[in-house]
């Protein structure tokens, strides 16, 4: 459990072989960003549909888009590009790095340890119609396998090009290869929370901005904040309604064994995202529990990160633990209840 890094910008890596549909995913996110300031790093602007919406292009390769997103090319490498993003005012809410089709996403993900950023998952785009052929391909089989191995979360594209039987065979095959959850993205439309995480844009406390983040905002978010979280904490939010994801918010009055919770989340098939504040059980050593703090639990697919949150003088510690989870539709309440023993679901069904 590492200390929380205030204002660190979450950095998500988007990988996948050439033609998997990464750029389609990026373009779809740009269209739907809805006020979130997404910072996108790409090898080149070539196929990103920024042309029509450029507000301002700076000389150093940063392009500002309508709606607050920025796009930056990687011609100078990751270091300079991240330095540019972190110097923007305001800074992006989220950074998404599109890795080249022949790149290894894990190598790029290491850059999320750059000061000012925090790792927020490796998302690998998998074209359902081609992935098994690619995994047998004479030249790129090893590359495609390692891209899949490095994924915290798999985004399945081009599902419309395969029949139901083939789809079942491919997703089953993927499941055997990788414990990462699979989320469908027809036409590249990944559910927004999968990339942006659960919650409002950073620093956006205005209710109208919160309402932007999805149809379920009232149910999850307000119930959660009403459940004892101090106002200075980011409110736990509801999730965008979608037939490809299912969101729910859970609470517990008991102190929680955080490492055990993290390992159950890590092993929960179909967990796409989780975010919440957990009141930890008192440990043997001096921990946040003794100081009245909480643990911020955040998951992207099978990657779970726990950071400590220390209360400030004027902010009360949370009385109860609250976690919002986003899963694939096949994960039911029973499975979640098993991962969250003693917790109860609080959002409207």
């Amino acid at each position, binding site marked *: 459990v590492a200390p929380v890094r205030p204002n660190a910008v979450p950095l998500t890596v988007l990988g996948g072989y050439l*033609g998997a549909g990464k750029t389609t995913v990026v373009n779809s996110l740009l269209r739907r960003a809805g006020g979130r300031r997404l910072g996108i790093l790409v090898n*080149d602007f070539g196929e990103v549909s920024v042309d029509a919406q450029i507000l301002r292009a700076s000389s150093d390769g940063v392009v500002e888009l309508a709606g607050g997103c920025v796009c930056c090319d990687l011609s100078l490498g990751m270091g300079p590009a991240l330095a540019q993003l972190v110097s923007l005012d305001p800074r992006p809410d989220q950074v998404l790095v599109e890795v080249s089709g022949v790149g*290894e996403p894990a190598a790029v993900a290491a850059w999320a340890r750059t000061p000012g950023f925090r790792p927020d998952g490796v998302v690998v785009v998998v074209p359902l119609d081609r992935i098994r052929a690619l995994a047998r391909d004479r030249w790129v089989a090893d590359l495609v396998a390692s891209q899949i191995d490095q994924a915290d979360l798999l985004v399945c594209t081009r599902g419309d090009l395969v029949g139901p039987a083939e789809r079942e065979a491919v997703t089953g095959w993927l499941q055997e290869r990788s414990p990462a959850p699979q989320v469908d993205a027809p036409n590249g439309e990944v559910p927004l929370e999968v990339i942006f995480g659960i919650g409002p844009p950073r620093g956006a406390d205005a209710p109208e901005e919160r309402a932007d983040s999805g149809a379920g905002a009232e149910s999850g978010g307000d119930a959660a904040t009403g459940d004892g979280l101090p106002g200075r904490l980011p409110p736990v939010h509801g999730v965008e309604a979608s037939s490809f994801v299912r969101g729910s918010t859970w609470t517990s009055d008991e102190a929680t064994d955080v490492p055990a919770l993290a390992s159950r989340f890590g092993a929960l098939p179909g967990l796409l995202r989780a975010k919440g504040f957990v009141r930890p059980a008192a440990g043997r050593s001096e921990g946040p529990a003794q100081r009245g703090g909480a643990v911020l639990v955040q998951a992207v697919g099978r990657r779970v990160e726990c950071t400590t949150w220390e209360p400030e003088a004027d902010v009360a510690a949370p009385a109860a633990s609250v976690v919002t989870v986003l899963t694939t539709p096949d994960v039911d309440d029973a499975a979640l209840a098993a991962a969250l023993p003693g917790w109860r679901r609080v959002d409207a069904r």
Partner: protein
Amino acid sequence: VFEAFGALAHRAGCTTVADLGGTFLSDPSVLEALASTTARPDFPVRLSMFHLAAQGPHTAEKEVALVDGLVDRSTEKLRFGHVKLILDGSVQGFTARLQPPGYLGDRPNGMWVTAPERLRETFLAFHEAGRLVHAHCNGDEATELFLDVVAHALSRSPRWDHRHTVTHSQLSTPAQYRRMAALGVGANIFANHTYFWGDQHRDITVGPDRAARMNAAATALAAGVTISLHSDEPVTPIGPLPSMANAVERRTASGAVLGPDEAITAAQALEAVTLGSARLLKMDHEIGSIEGGKLADFAVLDDDPLTVPPDRIRHLSVVATVLGGRVLPNEHGAMP
């Protein structure tokens, strides 16, 4: 930059230099600088500027059009029209793509710099446009893929005397050299690697057996492949004489001889850095040998590289070069 590079190449005894790294040929200011610098009578070398393809956002079709547009800007000392593709990384960086058994110590295979699909598409477009393509292949799996791509393109669009070339060709196998000969593909061999990284290749990257057949100039010539030797400046220092010496001696930095069976004679090495290079640049009707009707490009040395002991070759002095009949003395070279 071009001026300094020209001076450096001249001191090393070059009269024509190929730059295979140009992603910047779409920049008008670069083209302007190239044109004005090379137009000066005292600019001491000819430049063959390759277009580095499939690295940016452009489609193959657009890149073909870009190169077509460049060709009209060619002059006697500034040539455009050839194309470079990069398949893999480097052996010493463990990023070259190797066939089994791969790197020592169960290291993972290297990386593709260009995705095979994009490579195929780009190569075919330039092949059909009649362009000459040099392809960076350090590992033998990269060579294998490139030869497959060439074979596929030739079966679709037969072309005679295309002179497509495997550049670096460091781990190309005897079977691959036979295939190159059959396909009409040349090899621009990175002989300097034997000296600079030979010890490391033997001990760390690929082991003694494959290190001994790296940069297999003798196998290439025996198979009937046209070869040249290169420095990859700034990766290793530019200099046809040291490159010749490395192919003849095959000595590593520690002094060991690596794969003596792949050593070639001084005469073969001299032909590789002159007429061999000219053939792989499609300039052998103009340069590469001293013949009536050619451009009179050559270097004047302080001794005969074909008769001095092999360990003297790299120490020979360039007294002057002659470019198109114009004598360009080398103030750094010693008189005999």
